[in-house]
């Protein structure tokens, strides 16, 4: 297979199959007319529309679509037709509430996506539901938005969800907002009523650090002040909704901040004849270029960027925020998913195991002190223990309560979390994107939060991961064994990374590193000979002061006994997992083979029940105890 390499322009020659001519053969593709306007190339701006139930959000969107000619032909007629057949009065909201359930209940269930454009730019409108039960969908919509419209009903004023949604917008980091005061046709003394409204709102929004770009009186049903200026409210001289949208600043991508890229994976497709080792991820902030010195956190490893890689385009010399990219490194260091790539000469992130954070909770089951959750920040994933709740904020009244031991659904709280091992992040005040995390409870994302600050006192767990102050490991052979799919290679990489960070001299022997010189496979005798050869190699490396982590197929007890006999300090770690877990991990990769279970390993770990970090921490804890006792 020919693989696109980063160093040379990838051939952009069309791959043609069809003699009749797929349309790529002509270089003169510009024979047709190009429509050149700015909206063609500008990225889409995400706008979320939030507010209390029944205040008319969907109506406003439906009307905007209709008034700007953004609907597919026949859609309006189709919905009107359906309403006539089911004897329901037509509403513009039905355009969005396309699901049958919604037509039955008359409320928006989910954050629908609607595409929309003005001469200035393209929009992706996210219609967030106002019903309190569906707050998680509102969060889903709002978190993707660059700007928000907060809709409220002139007749009802500021309601519970108006406050709640505004507060969440503030917490989610949506800074550009406009308030749309709907149903102005139902209000007596429009102008003075509106002025009162505007004053109250501004005060409230200021209290949560939001400043509206505009407060706009509209009549959604009739389209007044949406796309078209109202003739019945001539006293209002501010912008229409459409003008306000076009006035929002596209935040673009944060290329000016310090470089931050959570590592998604490190790819090596050796089987396809590609020996590049590519660190891949999406850049959250800043930019990186060939030759830059990168530092990975929390491991602290550093080296230079050798090349940026790409498929079917010229390999870029620079990549910036918002781009999914990949690069190779000048030196082979062990980097894994979950680390945060940064640049050496820029401000560095924090790594800690104890954090103060602001959290909003969406789960049906409360967030409780003393329980463990999975915390995901960037690509890091760690077990988190809720140590304490400092205060709970009722998002609808903004009242603050102390002394609570749980956070209920739809509440916001400041809490302290203890993490099983250190992860890297920025404080929310420094860099929002890399301060954000979610909490997973019972297989489901149940809350979100931002890290306010790192706290001291990281006595999380006896088997905590090692920090930079940890002592180097003493030379030994760490022999990982287990059936295929038990997680040997992943754990080996994790341990090698950790030990190297702590200052040990580490050698990793797995199929990736020795595969070419010592190919796997062959007869049983050949495979056993391979194990013995590598065991001998490991013992020599150990003799010269290295910590040798071995993760190769070693199904024979006899061969492992040989490995133990040649090493000075041999630590056999047997990895197990339930058979269904093993099968799932193995998948198509390999058939199970006869495996002899170790009779007396130093350590046995069930990787089906432990996360990688937990398994790694168990091994380190064992090693630390062993070192201190001998």
């Amino acid at each position: 297979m020919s693989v696109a390499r980063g160093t040379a322009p990838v051939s952009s020659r069309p791959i043609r199959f069809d003699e009749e001519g797929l349309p790529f053969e002509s270089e003169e593709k510009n024979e047709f007319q190009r429509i050149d306007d700015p909206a063609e190339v500008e990225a889409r701006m995400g706008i979320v529309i939030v507010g209390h139930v029944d205040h008319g959000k969907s109506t406003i969107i439906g009307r905007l679509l209709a008034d700007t000619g953004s609907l597919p032909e026949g859609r309006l007629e189709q919905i009107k037709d359906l309403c006539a057949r089911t004897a329901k009065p037509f509403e513009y909201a039905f355009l969005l509430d396309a699901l049958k359930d919604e037509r039955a209940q008359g409320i928006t269930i989910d954050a629908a996506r609607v595409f929309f454009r003005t001469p200035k730019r393209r929009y992706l409108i996210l219609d967030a539901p106002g019903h309190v039960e569906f707050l998680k969908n509102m969060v889903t919509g709002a978190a993707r938005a660059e700007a928000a419209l907060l809709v409220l009903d002139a007749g009802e004023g500021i309601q519970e969800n108006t406050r709640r949604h505004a507060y969440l917008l503030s917490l989610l980091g949506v800074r550009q907002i406009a308030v749309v005061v709907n149903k102005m046709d139902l209000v007596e003394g429009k102008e003075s009523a509106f002025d009162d409204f505007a004053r109250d709102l501004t005060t409230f929004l200021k209290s949560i650090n939001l400043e509206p770009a505009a407060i706009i009186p509209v009549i959604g049903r009739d389209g007044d002040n949406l796309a078209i200026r109202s003739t019945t409210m001539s006293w209002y001289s501010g912008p229409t909704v459409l003008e306000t949208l076009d006035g929002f600043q596209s935040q673009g991508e944060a290329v000016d901040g310090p470089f931050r890229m959570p590592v998604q994976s490190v790819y090596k497709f050796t089987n396809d004849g590609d020996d590049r080792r590519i660190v891949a991820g999406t850049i959250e902030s800043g930019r990186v270029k060939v030759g830059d010195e990168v530092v990975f956190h929390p491991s602290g490893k550093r080296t230079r960027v050798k090349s940026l890689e790409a498929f079917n385009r010229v390999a870029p010399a620079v990549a910036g925020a918002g781009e999914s990219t990949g690069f190779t490194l000048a030196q082979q260091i062990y980097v894994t998913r979950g680390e945060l790539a940064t640049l050496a000469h820029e401000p560095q992130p924090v790594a800690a195991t104890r954090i103060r954070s602001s959290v909003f909770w969406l789960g049906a089951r409360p967030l409780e002190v003393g329980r463990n959750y999975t915390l995901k920040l960037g690509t890091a994933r760690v077990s988190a223990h809720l140590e304490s709740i400092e205060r709970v904020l009722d998002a609808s009244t903004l009242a603050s309560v102390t002394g609570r031991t749980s956070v209920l659904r739809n509440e916001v709280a400041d809490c302290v979390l203890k993490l099983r091992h250190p992860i890297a992040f920025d404080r929310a005040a420094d860099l929002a994107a890399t301060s954000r995390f979610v909490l997973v409870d019972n297989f489901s994302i149940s809350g979100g939060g931002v890290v306010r600050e790192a706290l001291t006192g990281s006595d999380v767990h006896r088997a905590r991961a090692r920090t930079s102050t940890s002592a180097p490991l003493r030379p030994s052979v760490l022999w990982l064994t287990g059936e295929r799919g038990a997680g040997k290679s992943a754990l080996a990489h994790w341990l090698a990374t950790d030990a190297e960070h702590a200052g040990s001299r580490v050698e990793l022997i797995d199929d990736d590193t020795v595969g070419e010189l010592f190919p796997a496979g062959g007869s049983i005798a050949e495979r056993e000979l391979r194990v013995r050869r590598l065991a001998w190699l490991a013992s020599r490396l150990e003799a010269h002061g290295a910590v040798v982590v071995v993760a190769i197929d070693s199904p024979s007890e006899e061969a492992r006994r040989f490995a133990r006999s040649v090493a000075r300090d041999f630590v056999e770690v047997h990895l197990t997992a339930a058979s269904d877990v093993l099968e799932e991990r193995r998948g198509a990769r390999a058939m199970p083979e006869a495996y002899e279970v170790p009779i007396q390993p130093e350590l046995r770990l069930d990787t089906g029940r432990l996360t990688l970090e937990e398994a790694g921490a168990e091994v380190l804890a064992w090693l630390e105890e062993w070192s201190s006792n001998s």
Partner: protein
Amino acid sequence: MSATTTVHAPSSKRASRIDHLDQLEHRSVHLLREAYASFPQLAMLWSIGKDSTVLLWLARKAFFGHVPMPLVHIDTGYKIPEMIQYRDRLAAEWRLTVIYGQNEEALASKQTFPDGNVDRLTCCGNLKTEALRRTLSGEGKRYRFDHTLGTYVVDTNREPFTGVIVGVRADEEGSRSKERYFSPRSGENNWDVGDQPPEFWNQYATEFAPGTHVRIHPLLDWTELDIWEYIERERIPTVGLYYDRGEGERFRSLGCWPCTKAVSSSARNVGEIIVELKSGKFSHIAERAGRAQDKDDGGGLETLRRDGYM
């Protein structure tokens, strides 16, 4: 390198900032990589149509020229033959792991619409939804393209797929606009529209209970026009059925021949399709207008999708 830097390397006609196609591409690539990191049993559905072929191309972007997961094709037996030829040519050319499955029982007992025994929706249910469910779970036979033999052999791997990448777009129809990027499905493939997990800050439902699987939708934010503009920019090979080859008609959306009508159009290449979509006759007509099954009841496609249809 010069002292000044731009976000992109200066290349021919690319702007020095992220345009809307770049933005879509980067997000899709991110989602594909998250899926690959999260699901050991991952597959990608490939319908041969333009959308899932763009998805396949995006996988090559995400994995630097490689496609490290199998592509699953549901062969209803009624696909237009040219689609199958195109599938196998790309499979060989790009060294893809292609697997197909089909509902052999329903075809043998002629429980299909073209046989006149069931209506269109039931036919979709049999030949697509049920075939997909059984192929993903491993209950049904899987046929894998053997690159040495150049033909399909029965696949010995019957492991259920726990992550399935699907190329649906939010703009296609109402129920798809409600989708998440990562959407958990029950063991029976059912979709609980009213109770979907929240999804924010690039964090997705990658945890899943035993017996369930997750659908991943990297193309959710793309429109039909985006797809064609991207095909043009990247020069992605597409099946010739999309173009007018002198008969004054072409397919806008590809499916089974008994239920997919060609539209009258003289667009002969990607550029002409883009012009047609932007300003021509199709700028206000929905893409799936030529798909008969969508019209059979008040929410035809939604009914299908709750049961596991793509």
